[in-house]
Structure formats: C-alpha cells, structure tokens
C-alpha cells in the first residue's frame, strides 16, 4: 500500500512537470496573434553584432509599445544550431535572428524564414549594394535584410613593401605575383599572404574572377569547379602555393598568425573589410604601416570585387511577433537606426551611407590616416553579382577543412583535387539530404 502510493506520487510529480513544460510552450505560441501593435510587446533579437543593441533606445522611443531584447545566442554556427533546435522544439524561437550571408539560403529554402515581401521589403532593393541584396533574395522572395558587409579587400603593410623596394600596392594579380617573389626574397620568414585551407579566401578569389561554381534553383543544386573563370583563380592560387610564396605553417586567427602580422613579416591580407576593427588589436606594433587597397584585378583598369563575409537579419517562420519584429528590422537595417550603428563602427551595405561624405572622410591613425572607408565603400559597390551559396554551406565548409588538410600538410595533391573531392562529398550529402545535386 505504501509502495503503491509512493509510486503514484512519483508518477504524478513527473506528469505535472511534463504538463507544465508542454503548457508553457503552448502559451508561448498562443500569447500574441502578432498583428496588434497596440498591445505592449517584447521582441527577442538574436545576434552577435554588438552594434544592434545601440539602435534599441532610439527605436523604443519612437515605438513605445515595442520593447526589444537583444540576446547573444552564440555566434555564427552556434546560433544557427540553437535556432534549428528552437524551430524543431517549437518553442523559444526568436523574433529576429542574425545570419551570415551564406546561411540565409540554408534557412530560407526549407521555409524556416518569413518572406519579407509582404511587408514591402522588395522596395528596398536599390538602397543596398547589389552584392548584399543578391544574398538575401531567393527566387521571388526577400528573406532577410542586410545588416553589415565584408567586401574583400587587400590590407598591405607599406613598410614591408618598401623594404622589398615596392612603392605602390599591386593593381593586378600578375603584379601581386611579382611582388610576392620580391617579398619572399627578403627572408625565409617573409610572405605576402598565408593560407591554411581557408575556403573563404579561395572562394573570394573565385568570386572575383567571375567563377560561379554553385547554381541553386530551389532544391536543385549544381556544383561545378571546372568553369574557366573558376579555374583561372584556382590555378593562380595553386601557383602561389607551389612556388612557396604563400605560407601554410599557421592557422589564421591563431596566436601565431597574430604575431606574424605584428612583426611585419606578413605583407598582405586578402580578407573582408571588417578586418579594420580587429587588425589594430592583433598587430599593434604595425601601427601606421597598414593600408587598405582594393583587391588586385585580373585586367588592369577593372573594378571587380568579391565578398568575404557580412550578415543580415531575418524573421524566423514561427516568430511570435513578426509584425513588431519587422518594424525593428527595418529600423536598424534601413531606417534611422542605421546611422546609430555606423557610429558604433558597423560597416553597412546601405548605399546612402556609402555615399555619405561624413562617413567616407573618417580616418584612423592605425592606417596612417588613410580615408580607408572610401576603399571599402567602392569595394562594396564593385562586388560582382550572380554568386550563390549552396544551401548546405555550413556543413560543406567544415568538410572542406577535412579534405584540404592532407594537401596542406603533406603537399601531396592539388587545389583542383581538393575541389573535386569536395564536389563529390557535397553531391553525396546534398542528395542524401533531399536536394537534387548535379543530377
């Protein structure tokens, strides 16, 4: 008798616990129909961009019924995972979430993002640089609004270049190659660039060259690394690696990389424009030596750019308050909130900002008082369009490392071989996941 009552008691506790868990998530969904902005509403924004928080006070003043709660739910990949989990669990879905451009299609294609066309977002097309807008549009819909941008540019160390007898940054890739030889001649530690299986680097080179290895049409994906423009970039970089002009002995973002930048033996960085915020901390001893320049071109006089990073914000499909979310989204990516964020250091792809003389005339002593934003703005406008990311790019980029590692470690193989294997694995994975890849 006692045993039965004890078991009954334990079961009832478990049931109550389960019931409260279920009912709390149900009440989350039922709480607000979303359309009524007369009711005070709190929206949750997930993002690791520190400047978004700065736009909140201005928004809350003009929208007294909406409170904004900005939460850092992890950066990049960690946040995508958390968002996927929330969507699958059916609870805890934020009203707005941050996405790097390559992950927008990952969420948009299976319908996990709200199409913003119904809010009138399509009218904003000309307010952003084409490269950025290209990333948030899929088919007929707009699935996110760009919040920042990373045009691929070249940071070069004037001092190191001067040591090698070069007085101006390379304008073409042929010049870059010649300069690389001159830099490496300074000493066995001197290199023009580093690369350790960095897919973003290779990709920005392919992008700028005009290669479009990924073609996505809904669930149909076509992967091809053999097109001439793609091959041009790959063969060029292969030659740089083969001739030992690029160092592969340390990983980017590691302590070793910081020190190499800091002691001036690494002459350039082909990286996103956002690097301006972190380079001064990594290489303080090179203050006044680094400058920003556009990427070298394939033909003298051209002005073709590529992208290396950047993010956007979108509204998940099951967001509790989509209308209120869109009001804030529009505010900080398109409206008055943009300037607040720019003042905090954000680099945005909004054309109005990139044309603003006050914005462009900003200088920084670290870059020798160069008006570096002019370079970044031009580079943003020059980003070539037509690029598409495959919808499973996160997985693909983690696997790229696995495939590329043996080559970078042993020297056996080639970039072409790596890309071929990568294509094979992406095809197998994509088809297994329900896409139609290369069929």
């Amino acid at each position, binding site marked *: 008798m006692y045993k039965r009552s004890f078991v009954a008691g334990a079961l009832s506790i478990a049931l109550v616990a389960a019931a409260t868990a279920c009912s709390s998530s149900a009440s989350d969904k039922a709480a607000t129909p979303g359309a009524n902005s007369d009711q005070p509403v709190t929206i949750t924004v997930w993002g690791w961009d520190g400047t978004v928080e700065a736009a909140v006070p201005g928004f809350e003043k003009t929208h007294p019924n909406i409170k904004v709660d900005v939460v850092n739910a992890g950066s990049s990949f960690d946040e995508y995972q958390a968002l996927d989990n929330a969507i699958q669990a059916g609870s805890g879905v934020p009203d707005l979430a941050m996405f790097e451009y390559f992950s927008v299609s990952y969420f948009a294609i299976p319908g996990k993002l709200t199409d913003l066309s119904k809010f009138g977002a399509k009218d904003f097309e000309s307010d952003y640089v084409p490269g950025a807008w290209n990333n948030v549009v899929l088919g007929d819909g707009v699935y996110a609004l760009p919040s920042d941008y990373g045009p691929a540019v070249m940071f070069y160390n004037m001092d190191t270049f001067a040591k090698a007898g070069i007085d101006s940054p390379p304008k073409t890739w042929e010049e870059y190659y010649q300069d690389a030889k001159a830099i490496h001649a300074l000493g066995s530690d001197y290199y023009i660039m580093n690369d*350790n299986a960095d897919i973003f680097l290779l990709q920005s080179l392919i992008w700028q060259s005009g290669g479009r290895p990924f073609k996505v049409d809904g669930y149909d994906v076509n992967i091809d690394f053999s097109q001439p423009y793609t091959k041009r970039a790959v063969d060029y970089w292969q030659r740089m690696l083969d001739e030992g002009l690029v160092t592969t002995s340390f990983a980017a973002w590691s302590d070793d990389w910081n020190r190499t930048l800091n002691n001036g033996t690494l002459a350039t960085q082909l990286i996103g424009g956002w690097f301006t915020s972190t380079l001064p901390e990594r290489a303080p001893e090179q203050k006044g030596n680094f400058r920003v320049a556009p990427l070298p071109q394939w033909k003298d006089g051209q002005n073709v750019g590529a992208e290396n990073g950047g993010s956007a914000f979108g509204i998940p499909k099951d967001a509790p308050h989509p209308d209120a979310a869109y009001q804030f989204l529009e505010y900080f990516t398109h409206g008055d909130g943009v300037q607040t964020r720019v003042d905090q250091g954000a680099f945005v792809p909004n054309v109005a900002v990139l044309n603003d003389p006050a914005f462009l005339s900003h200088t920084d002593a670290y870059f020798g008082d160069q008006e570096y934003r002019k370079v970044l703005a031009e580079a943003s406008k020059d980003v070539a369009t037509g690029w598409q990311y495959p919808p499973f790019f996160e997985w693909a980029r983690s696997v790229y490392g696995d495939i590329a590692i043996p080559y970078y*470690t042993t020297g056996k193989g080639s970039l072409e071989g790596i890309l071929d294997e990568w294509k094979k694995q992406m095809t197998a994975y994509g088809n297994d*996941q329900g896409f139609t890849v290369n069929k």
Partner: protein
Amino acid sequence: MSLQSTSVDAELAAPTPRRRNKVKRKQTGWLFLAPFALLFTFVLIVPISYSAYLSVFKNALVGGTSFVGFDNYVKLMADDNFWDAVRRVLLFTAVQVPIMLLSAALIALALDSRRLRGTNFARISVFLPYAVPAIVSTLIWGFMLGVRYGLFKSFNEGLGTSIDPFTPPLTLVSIGVMITWAFTGYNVLIFYSALKAIPHDLYEAASIDGAKQRQIIRFVKLPALRGSITITVIFSIIGTFQMFNEPQILPAIVSNSGITTHYTPNMYAYQLAFTGSEHGYAAALALVMALITVVLAYAVQLWGMRRALD
C-alpha cells in the same frame, strides 16, 4: 486454550510489530533510493531511450524527419570515417592507458613508500593537472608545443632538430602527452587510497617472514592494487573512447595537425549532429560507440574479477 484464542484474536486485530517494521523498512529503502533513482532515470535512462528513438529516424534538410528503421545503423557499419575514428581511439587507448597507469602505479608506490620527502606536496601537485579545465590546458599545451613561438622552438633550436609535435603522426602522441599529464594524478589518487587501505598486519607478517622491500611490493602491495587497476582501466578506456576536447580545440591554434572533423567518434557525432543536422545518424553513432565501450569495459571487468579469484 483461552490464552491461545486471545493471542489469535490479538493477531487478527492488528498486524504484528514485525510485519509493520518490514513494510516500513521497505518504504524507507525506497525513499533512500529515490533521489538516485530519479536522477538516474532522468539523466541516463531517458536520454538513452530518446537517443534510441532518434536513431531510427533520418533527418533531411529537405523533407524533414522520416522513419527509416535500422538504416542509420547499416550506414554506420559501412562508414569509413567512423571506423577510422574508432581504430584511432582504440590504438590511442592501447598505448596511452598502460603508460599512464604504469606511471600512476609507480608514483603511488613511491608516495606510499614513506621514503619520499614532502609526500603531501607531491600528492597535491600530481593531482593538480586534473583540476585544470581541459580547454585551458589544451590552449597552453598548444602554445608550448608550438614550433614557431612555443617552447618547442627553443627545443629545436637548442638541439638542431626540426620536430613539429603537431604534424600528423606526432599529433596523436602530443595529445597522448596532454591526456597523460592531466589524468595521471587522478589515477594516482585511486591507487594511493588502495595502498593506504592495506591492513597493517600484512606488513607485520611480511617483516616477520623477513621480506625485503621489493618482495613486499610484489607480494603485498601489488595484489592490493589489483582491484583498483581494474577500475582505473575501465575509467581510462571510457575516458579515451570519449576523447573530444583536445582534438576539437587544437585546430584553432595549430595548423596542419591532421585533425579532421571525424578524428574521434565523439567529434564525428558532434559534427554530424550540429553541422550536418543529421541527428538520427549521430544518435545511432553514439549508441554504437556506447555499446562498444560497454562491451570492452565489461570484458575488462570480467578479466579483473577472474584475476582476483586466482
């Protein structure tokens, strides 16, 4: 006769104190067990059952979740990445665990020999590495063993060698060094407690028989360690099979280490579940890995028990 009937009446009227005590003891027993039972259920039984449930589904980015029966397990059996990782972890266990336990046993014997000065200090300092969080120790080791700016640079310069501890064949050795450094102290503690628990009359008997130190170690101390050796072997196998921290963090610090996303089974499961969104497949992998670990641990336990009964 009347006495008998009254005692029977008395018995029928109320349960005897003995029977009431038995029920109360049973209830008390359950109450004592309850906290652990609840924890065990929610922390072990429920997640494992849920994983088993997940593993019979396939998750596709397009099309969502679908029931596939044992397909995930069949796919796992043919998965080169998985078996490669299992082989690596088995090799690592076979080499690292004996070295670590031998060192731990020697250190424990040394501490117990009472010939050591500063036993307390030695005991604490041997155990300290275990207290360092794995991430912190990996970062520091990564720096120390670095050939560009770390200690190994000086080592190479001093000896004229050019060894890079983080190139593919040596990477596993370096990880072995890190793990041995971290966990030897833990095993020393277990062995030391076992040695301390040896009844003193055994030592007296040994000295009466005229045993030398070497013989005391061989005939008194080592047999006493037998039980704890079995335990530490099981713990170490479980630990190395789950290796994750070091290979996960190292690629961010060192390049060309040869560490892939499927270097160990745990890393592969993590990659599958969180990068590839293949939760069902990852669950199947985790369960198969758990099964392999359980089988091995059970085999070790049987071996240990049989040795103990000799």
